[in-house]
């Protein structure tokens, strides 16, 4: 597992913060007073404790044996959606908490939907507050099949569906002792067994996203294994060149890899992508995508068609929008050169000059 980033989502008061509190108390033993309410362990702000609700994304990293877990505890209230978006965009796995009594509610659907739009990471469903329904197995299996149906509709993978209660930590930190639930792993067991997809990308096509240039260009190696003297193609301009220097000389095998690069003839600049020959996008190509963009009156948004969007909390004069699905068509060479950068991991970034205006997932 090495390092797992977990986003925790779900509807208001379904038990997200209590679950995170249990995990943190277990993993960071000794740091929290024994009489401190579990839900308050990650609700550290004064106003969160005053109003008894999570308002800002909480982040904590803890050791689990030789590995590390970063837990991103997102607020459930709709007005604080920015926190959940931040969490799910970066997560290796989403723990979706569903109250056994209330089942799937508005924010449960929205969080699943956002996961499908922004990340498509696996989802671990945790049916919480099982003590409140007296560990009713029938109810658990009802919710389980409901979860499976939604995940299927949204094209998401469910890694596990488990149940428990933060009150006794049964099903959460250790297995339940109830007959019909004893076979199910605890949430903690699921996390320990989970293997994020970190397959080697050495044999994939070469993709280096260039972030800037100082004495040489610097950027991120997303896939492939660049070699000195290798012939490459640089998009969006499309010219061919040869690699003359790679820094560091010995690259790690944990992607993405920060890298320095110099070419024989050209100087690379921010927004360029260094690729294997003949493997990038062309004028006339089109994509379906979902994701977030920062819309302004002009700029790359001209490319966006059939946009359906939900405004969310934004910066002054600039409103981030979540796009459910829209079509990008690369109408001209200018669009290809200035506006779209693909990383070939089904993610695209919308550019306006050197500014990133959006992060998108390409849809099949």
């Amino acid at each position: 597992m090495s390092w797992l980033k977990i986003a925790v989502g779900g509807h208001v008061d379904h038990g997200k913060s209590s679950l995170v509190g249990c995990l943190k108390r277990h993993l960071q033993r000794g740091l929290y007073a024994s009489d401190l309410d579990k839900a308050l362990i990650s609700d550290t702000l004064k106003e969160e404790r005053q109003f008894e609700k999570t308002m800002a994304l909480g982040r904590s990293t803890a050791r689990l044996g030789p590995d590390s877990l970063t837990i991103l505890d997102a607020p459930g209230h709709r007005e604080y959606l920015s926190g959940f978006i931040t969490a799910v965009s970066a997560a290796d796995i989403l723990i979706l908490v569903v109250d056994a009594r209330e089942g799937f509610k508005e924010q449960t659907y929205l969080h699943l939907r956002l996961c499908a739009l922004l990340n498509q990471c696996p989802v671990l469903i945790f049916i919480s507050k099982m003590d409140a329904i007296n560990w009713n197995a029938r109810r658990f299996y009802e919710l389980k099949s409901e979860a499976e149906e939604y995940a299927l509709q949204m094209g998401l993978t469910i890694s596990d569906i488990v149940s428990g209660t933060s009150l006794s930590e049964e099903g959460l930190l250790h297995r339940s002792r109830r007959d019909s639930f004893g076979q199910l792993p605890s949430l903690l067991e699921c996390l320990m067994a989970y293997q994020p997809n970190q397959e080697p990308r050495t044999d994939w096509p070469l993709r280096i996203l260039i972030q800037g240039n100082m004495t040489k260009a610097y950027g991120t190696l997303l896939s492939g294994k660049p070699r000195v003297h290798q012939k490459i193609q640089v998009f969006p301009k499309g010219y061919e060149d040869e690699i003359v220097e790679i820094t560091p000389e010995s690259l790690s095998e944990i992607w993405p890899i920060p890298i320095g690069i110099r070419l024989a003839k050209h100087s690379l600049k921010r927004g360029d992508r260094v690729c294997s020959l003949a493997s990038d996008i062309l004028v006339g190509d089109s994509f379906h995508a979902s994701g977030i963009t920062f819309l302004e009156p002009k700029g790359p948004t001209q490319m966006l068609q059939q946009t359906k969007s939900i405004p969310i909390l934004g910066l002054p004069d600039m409103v981030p929008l979540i796009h459910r699905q829209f079509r990008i068509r690369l109408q001209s060479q200018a669009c290809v050169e200035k506006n779209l950068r693909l990383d070939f991991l089904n993610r695209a970034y919308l550019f306006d000059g050197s500014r990133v205006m959006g992060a998108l997932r390409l849809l099949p």
Partner: protein
Amino acid sequence: MLRNVQLSFATMSILTRLEAQAIHWIREVYSQYPKTVMLWSAGKDSTALLWMVKKAFFGEIPFPIVHIDTSVKPPELLLFRDQLAKEWGFKLIVLRNEAAISQKQTFFDRGLTRMQCCKNLKSQPLIDLVKSDIFPSGPVQVVIVGLRSDEEGSRSKERFVSLRDKNSQWDPVLQPPEMDGVCPPAIPDGYHFRLHPLLEWTETLIWEYTRQEGLPVNPLYFSKDGMRYRSLGCLPCSAPFPSRATNVDEILLEMRHLAETSERKGRGQDSEDGGLETLRRGGYM
């Protein structure tokens, strides 16, 4: 000399990913917002971060490094600061709120609260720096800070890229969404960002990285007469604790027990009037 201790594969893998994440953010933010400065306290976290900046830019440090001097920092810390600045060859800007120091508007001179003192001697120079003409083309756009989310409650509520308003005030609830390594495309007029590349590191991971990279360590972290500092700050408000650790390996052994207690236990300002959250909302790092 420190590299002969083998790290586990899992730890190396975590450190590699965390370092890559930090370097990505540093490069991304600096490429988009060149009017960037970095705060350096000469402690273990910001020294590790400074090393990552050097790695990000092939040995160079392309932006000014700022140290806030309260006039009551331990002399060993200042000596370490000056030696490393010379050795690594970067531009160091030292900020002091001379007015507050000369008028004795401090905790140690006039019995102001620790919070007021921190505000005068640490927050105010930082707020002034952001508005200053350090860059001829306009005010500071980004301040890079080596804080970690595991240090203290309000820091666990931080983002990698965190927005500050015209008065450097922080509202943890009203922050724009972060999209997997992409920083916001513009900064509203008068606002600036704080970048926190070490947000997902822990105290133990920083020591493991220090050992892996063979980084210089401020001697205050090592035991002298049976006492050492775990978190460095001003002399009147920081307390050392009993320890026998005289090198990084021994600190890491000690961390197996210390990880169960707060790193900032010895820092006076954390226990006063709303603690660090109040200070940080007002512009503190």
